[in-house]
């Protein structure tokens, strides 16, 4: 369904490398993209795969790759490059059990922070996290929109239990949503000429949060792209004030509009004393548990976070109003996402339901919800 979403979003280029449990996306793109006049090909490794995608995106085409933890480890060099060169890109990261090659066919939600904090400087990388096949479709399209608008890499974080579980989807009921395209420079400018303020510069912005308008390599405006520290024209610089501005801008362009880049599912009870927060595959068990606990009288709310990053702070604040305790459910050892959101929850008591090696069951979550009430 991620491949279906990518195609509907207008993805024209896919380069991949086989890795369980992400291979299905690769195979679907190889099968489907050519009939949509797109280019899908096998790269000799994950480093090449993502670099091909970035090159194709620089040429002006929506691009995507898919991988799992071990492949992600190889890709992070170029994820940073895409961030620095403000190149739109969607990466489907299908988690499996780690560390290292871990368990290829075992699910996990252990890559949440590995994915988010993959850049030197700790820049915010948007991460969208589907809970089922339908959301794989919807959130992949949304990821393309975010990548295109923001001019940056966006991650769709799935896991083995979602990617390798077959699930019925009613195609006719799928939203006819499409992804937005990156705004492109259209006005003619004599090639290679910069005006005094360098408004034709590859990375020109006035205020820090503004997003430079994209020009493709091969287009009528000269592109000066670089992964090294640069000014607004793309010229290599060490630490001029303008270069520091560019580095700040890379974060500011997302944070300034963070409230517009939010996706959550709320199932709130105004009288709730307990709030369950979860994401991805675990949220399905959590939702089951919440439903069952309510039947036995528990006052409990549920917040499913689809946009893990940027952290949907306002939604967190709304969901925690009047709540005495928060339970964060995620399939990893130490509560990775819990460690991130804890700081936004103030004095509320926070505890985790965590496990590795198998999916967390509704019964396990229920025992904590009902034990906590």
């Amino acid at each position, binding site marked *: 369904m991620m491949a279906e979403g990518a195609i509907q979003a207008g993805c024209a*280029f896919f*380069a991949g490398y086989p890795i*369980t449990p992400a291979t299905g996306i690769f195979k679907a793109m190889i099968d*489907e993209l*050519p*009939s*949509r*006049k797109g*280019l899908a*090909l096998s*790269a*000799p*490794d994950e*480093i*090449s795969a993502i*670099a*091909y995608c*970035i*090159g*194709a995106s*620089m*040429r002006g*085409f929506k*691009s995507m790759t898919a991988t799992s933890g071990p492949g992600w480890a190889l890709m992070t060099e*170029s994820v940073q*490059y895409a961030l620095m060169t403000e190149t739109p890109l969607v990466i489907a990261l299908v988690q499996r059990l780690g560390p290292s090659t871990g368990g*290829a*066919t075992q699910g996990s939600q252990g890559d949440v922070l590995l994915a988010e904090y993959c850049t030197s400087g700790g820049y915010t990388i948007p991460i969208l996290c589907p809970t089922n096949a339908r959301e794989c479709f919807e959130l992949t399209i949304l990821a393309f929109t975010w990548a295109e608008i923001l001019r940056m890499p966006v991650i769709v974080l799935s896991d083995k*239990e979602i990617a*390798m*579980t*077959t*699930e*019925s989807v*009613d*195609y*006719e*009921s799928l939203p006819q949503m499409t992804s937005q395209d990156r705004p492109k420079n259209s006005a003619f400018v004599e*090639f*290679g000429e910069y005006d005094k303020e360098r408004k034709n510069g590859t990375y020109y912005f006035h205020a820090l949060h503004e997003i430079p308008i994209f020009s493709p*390599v*091969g*287009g*009528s405006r*000269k*592109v*000066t*792209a*670089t*992964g090294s520290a640069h000014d607004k024209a793309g*010229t290599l610089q060490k630490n001029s004030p303008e270069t520091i501005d560019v580095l700040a801008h890379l974060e500011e362009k997302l944070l300034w509009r963070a409230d517009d880049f939010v996706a959550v599912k709320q199932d709130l009870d105004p009288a709730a004393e307990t709030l369950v927060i979860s994401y991805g595959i675990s949220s*399905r*068990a959590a*939702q089951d548990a919440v*439903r069952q606990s309510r039947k036995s009288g528990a006052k409990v709310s549920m917040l499913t976070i689809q946009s893990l990053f940027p952290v949907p702070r306002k939604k967190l604040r709304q969901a925690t109003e009047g709540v005495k305790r928060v339970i964060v459910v995620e399939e990893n050892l130490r509560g990775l996402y819990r460690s991130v959101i804890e700081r936004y929850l103030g004095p509320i008591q926070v505890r985790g339901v965590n496990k590795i090696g*198998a*999916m967390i*069951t*509704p*019964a396990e979550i229920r025992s904590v919800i009902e034990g906590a009430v």
Partner: protein
Amino acid sequence: MTRTSVTSESFGPQVNSYLIDNPLWPFCKGCGHTMVIRRINEALVSLQLQPQDVALVTDIGCIGMSDGLFRAIHTVHTTHGRSTAFATGIALADSVLAEKKLKTIVLIGDGGAMIGLQHLVHAAMLNVDVTVLICNNFVYGMTGGQGSGFTPECFVTATTPDGNIVPPVDICEMLMSSNAAFVGRTIATDKELTSLIAQAIAYPGFAALEILELCTEFAVPQNELTGTKLLAVAEQNGWSMGLLRAGTDRPPFGKKYLDNILTKPTQSPRKSAVRKNLPKPMGIDGPVSLMIVGSAGEKVQSAAATLCQAAVASGLRVTQKNDNPVTQGSGFSLSEVWLSPEEIGFTGIDRPDYLVILSTDGYRELVERGVLLRLGNTTKVYIDESIDVPVEHGKVKRHAYRKLFGPTLAAVGALVHIARLNRLVDSEALDGAVQPRLKNDAPKFNQAMEQLMGKS
């Protein structure tokens, strides 16, 4: 700054130079990079390429700083060794998705070529329209003259103070054995260099030139190297010089992809297989879980998928989780299926409503997982009669699935049997899903099914 002069109306402005005016060369005195940049510029001038139709992709290291010297072409400064891969992406997209107009040139040093060897090899294999100029000065200059994979034997570098004891790679041989279409090796002072570079750029496929150079800061002082000695270094290493391969008949990747792959007909959007407004199957008034185990190669998982297909056609929601050993062709094979009139949350099965056991491999896996111990008294267990083991919990029924249907149809036979007995799916939908996969086995299968249903 003076502008490039305009002399030709028919072919856009005549370009006299693609370099910035009065550049401050960032290279050391006598460094080969300066010569190479001048020759690239001359080659571009001789080809009179439109500035917007050229992309220069530079690597890391001294040679990587060259992008700043060019004004009137697209430049992409990349990461160490990856320049070829980014360039390949640009060229792939250009050749298949765009107007096929770009000339993409990679500037990379010996260090970058070594760390990015795989990208060079794959670009050569693909035969993308990328020209790679490998500026080999035998050392990593920017970081202080360390030895690279291209450092000749006996060379003294920062990391081979007693002389290099590892013979260098012959990149031209390597690329030719990777089907590189256009390959040459020369020295930076070669009078023919401009022409060679122009030929490489003009070639409509992968082209690589290795250019031997002096690093005056490191390689020269420690090895008594001079420009004239470069040829001797090449000879000592057995490196052939000159144009080693001047093109092949092999079409570039873009043309092959357009001719062979992009000819598929455009697909129409998928139609939903769900039949609307069906009365729900009688056996289903809430979520139902089913687990089936057997042996690899006995079509257990595809049988479960067929049941799911029938369930979807009956208007139900389904999930199917499969498991087997990683090697896929041996041991157990298992599917966990949920059928439900409502949206399905948790997809795991702790205690199945239905359990189907078709082989000893499958039985062992259930024991390993502790499933048999967790069974409730309401679980309906269907076990092949050939498996002579006790099952202590659940309502156990033994049937001759393997004997009646044969090992590869036992799974689908068992599932059809159970679905019909318990009315899990619409019977028309079940036939619609099962019959097409039976093909020639249909008469035998249907006869066996009648026999089984008669008994039950």
